[in-house]
């Protein structure tokens, strides 16, 4: 599967044709991570999905359809923008932004939902389900469901339903049923649990569109492949604009889909450093955060082995982040492997640092970023001043901040 990812649109010639990096293996493992840790009922549908995905990834007709949708419906390619004023202000490396915020629905999530929904239709499924935290993946799923005429049910933790009202309304406008999940911590992880339960119950007609590079094999590889259009485009755009590859590629990491989408096409360019930015919440030392790679241990959750936030008894811990989209106690297994193998490094920034970066970019560049994205921006603003002016950092601007107006206003004591 991995070797065919270059077929998934993006213009750039197939740079990964002779890849030495071949993860995952046939069982979906990235080193010791990943795999298929699901109840028996789901093993057969996962096999069907694997086979369908392998088949359509080599089907020119499917790839043409996907390419056309990414171009005409999503608006790809998204630009790479040189943030000159911000770069000058920081006084170091040049900062470039991959503008996924300009996609239809306002984030990178739609790259993946388009791919999976087209696959669902080819597999003859009539109903799609999705989990969502911030609501971005839910909106992206409801959007493609509306367009393809598929029934759509979105699971969302009760806590997130309350803090992302606008997105809940968007999903309902689009015709999706939004189910508020009341179990466990009532956030993203519990929404994922509930979606899995739905899938077990309705496997015959239902396709589960997972929103990030988590879940059982083949999801981490499949979502990565669909999101890799980000990095493929950006690689060519950076060469075009600067004559060379960036020194650093950087992205926020919730489940890790926008990060892997940017990183993957650079994985065999050793001169390009890859940095993922997790949510440190109130600070790693407080325990109130959502940074499993920086402060967790390996374990098994939601179908794969990866780094988790868990207690000494193996129970999954509650997470905290100002951004609902990063509020997840696990992370895609490929990131766990990239961390252990040393190919990528992972850091975490606090709520306060992310909020400062949110305001910073808004004021200097006139771009209002999502709170998730603001974590990557915060790290970039720490790193850039330590680098030379002829060096560059490419940041994935994974989404726009419109959905976060309420949250930010409330933090400033305003009621919109």
């Amino acid at each position, binding site marked *: 599967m991995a070797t065919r990812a270059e077929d998934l649109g993006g213009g750039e010639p197939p740079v990964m044709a002779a890849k030495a990096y071949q993860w995952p293996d046939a*069982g979906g493992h990235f080193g010791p991570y990943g*795999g*298929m*840790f*699901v*109840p*028996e*009922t*789901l*093993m*057969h*549908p996962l096999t069907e999905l694997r086979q369908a995905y392998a088949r359509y990834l080599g089907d020119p007709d499917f790839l043409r359809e996907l390419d056309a949708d990414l171009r005409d419906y999503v608006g790809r390619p998204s630009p790479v923008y040189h943030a000159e004023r911000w770069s000058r202000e920081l006084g170091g490396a040049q900062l470039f932004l991959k503008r996924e915020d300009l996609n239809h629905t306002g984030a990178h999530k739609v790259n993946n939902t388009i791919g999976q929904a087209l696959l669902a239709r080819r597999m003859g499924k009539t109903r799609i389900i999705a989990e969502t935290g911030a609501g971005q993946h839910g909106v992206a799923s409801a959007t493609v469901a509306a367009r393809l005429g598929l029934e759509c049910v979105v699971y969302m933790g009760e806590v997130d339903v309350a803090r992302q009202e606008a997105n809940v309304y968007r999903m309902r406008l689009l015709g999706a049923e939004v189910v508020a999940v009341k*179990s*466990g911590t009532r956030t993203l*992880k*519990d929404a994922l*649990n509930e979606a*899995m*339960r739905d899938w*077990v*119950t*309705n*496997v*015959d007609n239902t396709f589960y569109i997972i929103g990030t590079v988590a879940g059982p094999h083949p999801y981490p590889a499949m979502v990565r492949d669909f999101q890799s259009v980000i990095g493929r485009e950006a690689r060519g755009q950076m060469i075009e604009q600067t004559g060379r590859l960036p020194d650093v590629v950087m992205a926020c990491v919730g489940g890790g889909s926008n990060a892997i989408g940017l990183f993957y096409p650079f994985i065999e360019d050793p001169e390009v450093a890859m940095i993922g930015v997790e949510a440190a919440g109130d600070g790693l030392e407080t325990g109130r955060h959502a940074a499993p790679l920086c402060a967790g*241990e*390996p*374990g*098994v*959750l*939601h*179908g794969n*082995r990866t780094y*988790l936030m*868990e207690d*000494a*008894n*193996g*129970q*999954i811990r509650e997470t905290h982040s100002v951004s609902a989209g990063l509020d997840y106690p696990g992370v895609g297994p490929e990131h766990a492997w990239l961390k252990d193998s040393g190919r990528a490094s992972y850091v975490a920034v606090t709520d306060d640092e992310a909020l400062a970066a949110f305001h910073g970019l808004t004021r200097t560049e006139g771009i209002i970023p999502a709170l998730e994205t603001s974590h990557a921006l915060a790290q970039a603003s720490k790193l850039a001043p330590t680098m030379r002016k002829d060096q560059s950092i490419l940041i994935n601007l994974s989404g726009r901040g419109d959905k976060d107006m309420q949250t930010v206003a409330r933090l400033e004591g305003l009621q919109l």
Partner: protein
Amino acid sequence: MSRIQRRFEQLRAAGRTALIPFVTAGDPTPELTLALMHRMVSAGADLIELGVPFSDPIADGPVIQRATERALAQGISLRDVLAIVRRFRETDNETPVVLMGYLNPIEVMGGEVFAQAAREAGMDGALIVDVPPEESHALVDAVKAQGLDLVYLLAPTSDAARIEAIAEVASGFVYYVSVKGVTGAGHLDVDEVSSKLDAIRARIELPVGVGFGINTAATAAQVARVADAVIVGSAIVGRIEALAEEGQVERIPAVVGDFLGELRAAIDETDHGDQHG
């Protein structure tokens, strides 16, 4: 011969179908779980499945989810569950106990440490819901090295190849999930179950238990006609919940015991009828 094997041999010799109740350990308290286990045995349970609470039980419906939350609210850990089994074994050395749960608590303890602690506590086997044969090599080795059985789920979606893969790693018995769904789902179709059991028995020699969706004596009797074991979970846990909410915790063993007694009688009647007809 393992305690589970021995139990199924005895049942087979007597022409009886096993009755296997499931309860979540520590719901509503560890002391009550212990008393309940003994009461269930005297009411006719042949083997006990003890659920290990996990924060993210993706295969469980609302009833067992809430039981899990009640147990976790008191901080029940895998070690606490093993402690309950150790105390159970002080007075019952015959009834097999199978732990049912999810991988992460075991993973954190370490597979070998877990297997050894489980054997020392008097546990007989484990059914790890989110570990299919594809992912279980290390666990199989650790568990079998301690002489414990590893029980696997089979589902309506398991085709011949999957049944064969499970035949290679399973021991003790296998557990056929009678419906596509989570624990506590309704609508079990006995004819459908029966034809699937034929496909399973053609490839697996172990006894086959059937569970998910058995909530009345009548369904238990129907299932007993085709299965080697009748497994009942949510219907019991729902009774525990109702009494716990009414503040009548002390009545739980008696009420659950009476319910199991009804199931036992219905199953015995079926077994008896089969022998003569």
